[in-house]
Each structure stands twice: as structure tokens, then as C-alpha cells.
């Protein structure tokens, strides 16, 4: 074997990267992502092992339990490609080494992939796209789809190549500072963005009227005595821009919501979110909470306080 070294071509690695996108397709409760993992490795196994017994052994070896975040699995598969290449060339890489590297990498990497992709990048891009969409713009969905997939495809290809070139040595660096920092940095960004999303997109409005105060003349638009025609509209608009919304009526109506907004806008939203956190920690199902919130909404509307 020494006289003729087998190597994975770039085409082989691209084939693996393409198949790796289907990693979770046969996700099952027994060995989780094992089927998709084995499916992804097939082009490499075909290229590296010509002997049928070697192929059978390789396939079986890659049908073992495996589960991680589907994108950060790319560096793992890169490292595994390097290991398999070494093994095919007669290096002392046994089954336990390969499975050990896979298991050793998947845990810490899932711990990075989940907060970075599911809880930072997707909420941010999703919220950005959704806020455009709520304004009626098709750019919202397009932006989300294009940017997300550009990030994903670039990340998956380059980290797989990185893993392939670094080989097994990468597994030792995993506990190092870089990944920890990435996780911490994305948690900070994620929490910051979630804080702002709570303020912007959780809407609660308490409608009860707290006070009705008759306003001084001049503090409201005197609709009965406006000049006629377009001149009147102009006068009304000039006064409106000076007086604001309170100038529309002779009595100033203050709702409970306006009082709360003077403390800080969105106070009720943040209280509700923290309550949800508490309930979720007590293992109340999110579905139950959601249904309860709809019930509260209906009761609130019927009793006229929301």
C-alpha cells in the first residue's frame, strides 16, 4: 500500500460536503444522525477502499451513534476524512480512534452550534426578515433566505476543509479558548438582540382608562372654529404637529398603557417574557403557555381590559 498513496480529491470532498447537507434526514431515536453520517461518508469510502471487506467495515464503523448540530458537524467530518485517509494508507488508526474523535468533537461543537446558529444568527436574521415582511416587503423573506444560506454554505465548506487539513490535531484544540469565546460572544449578542426583540415585538396593551381631564383652550384643536376649506385643514395640521395626539380632543384621556409607557415602553412585555422563562424552567410546556396566552387575550378582550 505504501507504494501507492490514496488521497481524497477535492471532488470527493465536495461530494461529501453535498451529502452532508442531508445529515439529519434519517434522524432516529436509536442512533440519531448515524444514517445521514454514513450516507455522507460514502464517496470517501468508495475512493479510499477498493476491497469489499474494508468497505463493509468502514460502512459499519460510520453507522455508529452520532449526534451534533448539523452545521458544526462539518469540521468533524473533515477530521474524519483525514483519519480515514490515513487509515487507508496504513497508518495505525483503529475504529476506536475514529469513533473517539467523533464523540469527542460532537459534544463541545454542539455546544457552540446551538447558541451561535439557532439562538443568535437565526433569530437575528429571522427578526430582520420578519420586520421587513410585516411592512409588506418581499425583501424580508428573500433577505433571510439568501443571507442564511450564504453563511451556512460558506461555513460548512470551509470548516470541513479546515478539519480535513488540520486532521486529528484539531480535536485537542477544542477545549481551547477560541470556541469558548465564540460561544460567549454569541450569547452576549443573542441576549442583547432578544432584549430588543422583546421590546419591539411582544405587544401588550392595557386599555382601561385611568383618567379623563378636560384640557385648557389652546391645548386642543378647536374643531368647530377652524377656517373653512383647505385653509382649515392646514390650520388643524399645524396645530396637530405642535400639540401631538393629545390635541385631538377637548378631554385628555390617559389609558393604563400610557402610564406604563412613561415608566419605560414595553415594561409589561418584559415582565411577561420573564414570567415565561420562569414557567419554562418549571417544565411547563411551551404549548400550554401559548394556549394560556390566547385564553388570556380572549378574556382580556371580552372584559375590555386589553
Amino acid at each position, binding site marked *: 500500500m505504501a507504494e501507492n498513496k490514496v488521497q481524497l480529491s477535492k471532488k470527493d470532498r465536495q461530494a461529501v460536503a453535498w451529502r452532508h447537507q442531508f445529515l439529519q*434526514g*434519517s434522524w*432516529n431515536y*436509536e442512533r*440519531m444522525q*448515524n*444514517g445521514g453520517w454514513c*450516507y455522507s461518508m*460514502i464517496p470517501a469510502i468508495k475512493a479510499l477502499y477498493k476491497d469489499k471487506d474494508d468497505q*463493509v467495515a468502514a*460502512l459499519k464503523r460510520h*453507522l455508529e451513534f452520532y*449526534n451534533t448540530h*448539523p452545521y458544526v458537524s462539518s469540521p468533524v467530518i473533515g477530521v474524519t476524512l483525514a483519519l480515514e485517509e490515513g487509515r487507508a494508507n496504513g497508518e495505525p488508526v483503529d475504529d476506536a480512534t475514529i469513533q473517539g474523535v467523533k464523540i469527542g468533537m460532537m459534544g463541545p461543537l454542539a455546544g457552540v452550534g*446551538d447558541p451561535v446558529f439557532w*439562538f443568535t444568527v437565526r433569530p*437575528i436574521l*429571522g*427578526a*430582520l*426578515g*420578519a420586520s421587513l*415582511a410585516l411592512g409588506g416587503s418581499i425583501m424580508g423573506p428573500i433577505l*433571510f*433566505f439568501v443571507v442564511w*444560506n450564504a453563511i451556512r454554505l460558506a461555513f460548512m465548506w470551509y470548516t470541513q476543509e479546515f478539519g480535513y487539513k488540520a486532521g486529528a490535531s484539531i480535536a485537542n484544540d477544542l477545549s481551547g479558548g477560541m470556541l469558548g469565546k465564540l460561544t*460567549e460572544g*454569541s*450569547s*452576549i449578542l*443573542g*441576549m*442583547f*438582540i432578544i*432584549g*430588543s*426583540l422583546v*421590546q*419591539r415585538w411582544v405587544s*401588550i396593551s392595557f386599555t382601561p382608562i385611568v383618567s379623563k381631564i378636560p384640557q385648557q383652550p389652546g391645548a386642543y384643536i378647536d374643531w368647530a372654529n377652524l377656517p373653512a376649506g383647505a385653509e382649515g385643514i392646514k390650520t388643524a395640521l399645524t396645530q396637530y404637529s405642535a400639540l401631538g395626539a393629545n390635541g385631538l380632543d377637548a378631554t385628555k384621556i390617559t389609558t393604563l398603557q400610557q402610564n406604563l409607557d412613561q415608566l*419605560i*415602553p*414595553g415594561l409589561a412585555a*418584559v415582565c*411577561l417574557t420573564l414570567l*415565561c422563562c420562569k*414557567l*419554562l*424552567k418549571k417544565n411547563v410546556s*411551551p*404549548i400550554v403557555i401559548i394556549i394560556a*396566552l*390566547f*385564553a388570556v*387575550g380572549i*378574556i*382580556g*378582550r*371580552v372584559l375590555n381590559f*386589553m
Partner: protein
Amino acid sequence: MSPITILLVIIVAFFAGMEGVLDEWQFHQPLVACTLIGIVTGHPAEGILLGGSLQMIALGWANIGAAVAPDAALASTASAIIMALALSKGNVDTTTAVSTAIALAIPLSVAGLFLSMIARTLSTGMVHAMDRAAENANFGAIGRWQMAAIAMQGLRIAIPAAALCVIPAEAVTGALNAMPAWLAGGMAVGGGMVAAVGYAMVINMMATKEVWPFFALGFVFAAISQITLIGLGVIGVSLALIYLGLKELASQGGGNGGSGDPLGDILNNY
């Protein structure tokens, strides 16, 4: 709905179902799925609106490890189909159609969750078939089983979608128009609040004592309505970089600064 529309709806639903498990291209996210259903049924504007609203609710729904989250795929496709049916007769107003679709999406996400668990259980059998194929180095069979498993996940959404398409539009519009105002209004109020649950799920995954202040900062900055989401993103990234930079400085200059063994210091800090 015309046969061509139904076919297109089924294709979109199939993609959403596949992505519901693959989680790669994101065809199952409401923003994408509702928009596509809206386009193929001829209600693009309402589809985008529904997608945006549902996306805000589903931001925190993610499959972590073996835990399966509420299913965005069925929630967004099925609710968008129902909305399209409601709008097709032209006698239901858009707001009612959208807010009803949002409310319906919640039970649908639970139904989708159960379907997903069934599919993931059936996949176990398919993986055993792969084991047998591996015994003979039968590469093709492993590939076919993988594709079959993905197709099953696609059908998980495509079949319910097809079933919804044959519901007569009159039945949906009739039901919506018969709905009392307090119910429709109440569901709109509830729809404004449910986003909090998704955010709470994300917070619970990430929150440590260290990062709570950043939540407070984000909340307060967002109250300044002139700052756009992109602006907030820039502030957030800057804060994260500043914090990490300062923390590193502090750990270098702190207690074990005089040991003269920087590598040892780093190791000690872990």
C-alpha cells in the same frame, strides 16, 4: 383551488417537510414557507404578512439534541393554506384571516411535532435496513434508504397540506365570518403576546449571570425607535467585542500576572 395550484402547494409543503428535519435551507421557516404558499395560491402580500408574524413567534423554536421543538413546517404551511382558502372568496377581511391563521398555527405546530416524532421512530427501522445493506457494501441501498427517510419527512407535511386543499373555501370563509368579534379580537391580542414564549425559550438556553445585563441593554436601546434592527445588531456586536476584550485584559493583568509563565496562567484559568 385549481389542480395546478394544489400541485404547487404540495411541492412547497414537501420541501417544508424535508427541511423540518434537515434544518439546512430553511424552507420550513414561516417567513419562507408562508411566502411561498402565498405566492402559489395568488395571495403573496398576505402570505408575506403571515410569514413575518409567525416568524416572530417561532424565532426560538429549534431542535436541540434529541428534543424536538414545536413544528414550524406544519404550522406555517397549513395555516397559510387555510388563510389562502379564507381569502379566496373575497368576503373575509385580511386582518381576520391573518390573525386566525396565526392562532391556528399553534395547535398545528403541536400536531406537526407528533407527526415528526412518528417519522423519527419509523426512521429507526430504515437505519436497520442500512445496517443490513452495509453488510454487503451496498452503497446504493444506503443512499436509497436515506432518501426514503427524507421523503417520508416531506410527506409528513405534504399529505396534510393536500388534505387541506380539498376543503371547500366556502366552509372556511363561512366559519371565519361566523366567528364573533370578541373571539377574533381576543386571538389578535393573544397573538401579540405569544412571541414572548419563543423569546423565553431562547433566553433559557443562553442566560447566565454574566449575560443578563446585555438583555437589559438590548431592551432599553430598542425603546429608542430611531435605531433600526441593523443598528441594534451593530451595538450588540460592539458590546460583545468590548466585553470579551476587557475580560481577556483582566485575566492577563489579574492575580497571577507575576508568575512569568503565561502558558501556565492560561491553563490555570480554565
